[in-house]
């Protein structure tokens, strides 16, 4: 029997990790991820989770511990945010290039400077080309579901890549809402123990890992790594479908289309803003406007074919970016989506907003769609537009 539990996003993540039965967890607390580490520490202390939990002195150490544990055949988990991720960069890149199926939640937080602790996925988006699979979610339920799915995807023998489940700091990490928990037995069946068939680290039979490698071999590693990323484009939707068979919930696999069938214009979103975007689309549909919504769920591998299919027959689209791509004069998601639509002359707008924990409201997204509806083709090369919240007041 399924059961409903009221949790914040960090607890949703912790419950998913608990049900996924990792062998080793290593993490360093950082706002807004801290509660997740606290929950996991509590489960281990209470014997609800049989895992080795290391409270380390830095994020660099956390990832390095997991590399050893994963090489020894363990299922592993960690989580971080923002500056913690930045400190982790060196082992962050080494984990996918060693093809280790680590799962890491990134509780998205804006990058410094200026000093901030609030939300924004600049941290993980900036590292999109480091070789990890990256999944961005929109609700506490999807945090739970995506983490369980992430272990399956990461450990798939055709993939063997680490997976980030990215969720917005505060707007999800500190959001309280009900989620439905599947029975532990169902999760155990969906996610059998990790049994790698490659050689494992063994103290009784020592070996050297990752020796100095000449370029022609390194290129072979890169080629295979890239092919594994492309294979994930097939595996991720299969895993989502199988999970849907178990729970009745599908998140669309790589992307999620909402009221797109007969839409003339579309909004493209990532992360927790998608909830407000659904309502904005509903409101404009009620006014008779043919608008739809495309949520990018998986950013790496980038679902170029799905994005092309979803948008190629639209008159125009707008991408909402809660991040910036310095040097492109736009947001990261917009450059990604436009690359997928290269060759198609479809006008688009790019909105940047919600940085540093600012809200992205239904009204703001509705205004963006209204602007899009009136767009003429000359706007293709228009610079990005900055979304400000007209309802914002001072700090409460």
């Amino acid at each position, binding site marked *: 029997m399924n059961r*409903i539990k009221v949790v914040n996003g960090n607890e949703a993540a912790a419950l998913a990790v608990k049900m996924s039965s990792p062998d080793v967890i290593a993490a360093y607390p950082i706002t807004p991820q801290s509660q997740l580490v606290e929950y996991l520490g509590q489960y281990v202390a209470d014997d609800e989770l049989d895992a080795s939990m290391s409270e380390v002195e830095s994020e660099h150490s956390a990832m390095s511990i997991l590399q050893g544990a994963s090489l020894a055949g363990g299922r592993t988990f960690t989580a971080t945010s923002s500056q913690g991720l930045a400190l982790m960069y060196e082992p962050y890149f080494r984990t996918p290039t060693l093809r280790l199926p680590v799962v890491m939640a990134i509780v998205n937080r804006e990058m410094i400077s200026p000093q901030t602790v609030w939300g924004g996925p600049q941290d993980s988006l900036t590292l999109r080309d480091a070789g990890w699979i990256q999944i961005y979610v929109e609700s506490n339920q999807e945090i739970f579901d995506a983490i369980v799915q992430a272990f399956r995807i990461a450990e798939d023998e055709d993939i063997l890549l680490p997976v980030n489940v990215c969720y917005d700091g505060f707007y999800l990490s*500190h959001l*309280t809402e009900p989620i439905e928990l599947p029975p532990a037995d169902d999760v155990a069946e969906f996610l059998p123990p990790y049994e790698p068939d490659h050689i494992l680290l063994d103290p009784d039979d020592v070996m050297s890992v990752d020796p100095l490698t000449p370029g022609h071999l390194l290129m072979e590693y890169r080629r295979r790594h890239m092919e594994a990323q492309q294979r994930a484009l097939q595996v991720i939707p299969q895993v989502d479908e199988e999970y849907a068979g178990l729970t009745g919930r599908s998140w669309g696999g790589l992307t999620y289309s909402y009221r797109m069938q007969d839409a003339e214009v579309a909004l493209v979103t990532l992360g927790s803003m998608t*909830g*407000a975007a659904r309502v904005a689309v509903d409101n404009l549909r009620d006014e008779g406007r043919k608008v739809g919504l495309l949520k990018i769920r998986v950013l790496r591998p980038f679902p170029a074919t799905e994005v092309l299919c979803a948008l190629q027959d639209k008159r125009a689209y707008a991408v909402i970016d809660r991040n910036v791509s310095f040097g492109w004069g736009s947001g990261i998601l917009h450059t990604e989506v436009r690359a997928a639509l290269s060759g198609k002359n479809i006008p688009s707008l790019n909105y940047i907003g919600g940085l540093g924990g600012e809200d*992205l409201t239904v009204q703001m997204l509705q205004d963006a769609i209204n602007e899009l509806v009136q767009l003429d083709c000359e706007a293709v090369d228009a610079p990005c537009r900055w979304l400000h919240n007209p309802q914002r007041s001072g*700090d*409460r």
Partner: protein
Amino acid sequence: MKEIRLHGRGGQGTVKASELIVRAAVRGGRWANAIPYFGFERSGAPVSAFVRISDEMIWPKTQVYRPDCLVVMDASVRSAVPLFEGVKEGSMLIINSDSEELQKIELPDGVQTVGFVDATQIAHEELGRPIPNTVMLGAFARVSGWVAVDDLRECVIEVFGAENGRAVSRGYEEVSIVNG
């Protein structure tokens, strides 16, 4: 869908109260969500939180700008924040205040129903500490009718224990309701 904005000061349990409303609503078979306003965490500083309650699933994870109801843990917070900003026509105010202090507050036209209770005094009596949130939750259940007081009391007892359950009951019973 009903939208609620809670105001208080750091240490008064404003954010926890928002979570407890969600728990009580879900226990009653409804959907709800809550987020705090992400400010600077300091004891005594103004704090706010946002709650939505609906019979259907709620997608937006945003702040509340047009509240149907304000829950105010500390009447003095009105000098620090725009307390009544965006209140809907026909909305309700549930405030920790005695009648004397309430007289000093200039209510906007939108506020139709006021529930007031000296929650700090009751908290002193029941908990030995001036933390008004669970008393105010009882008052909220009574004035709004959006969550059942029994559901709320059970949730509060699970989280904070029996004393706070009594605080809920007293808030529910002792709130004075004025219709404007």
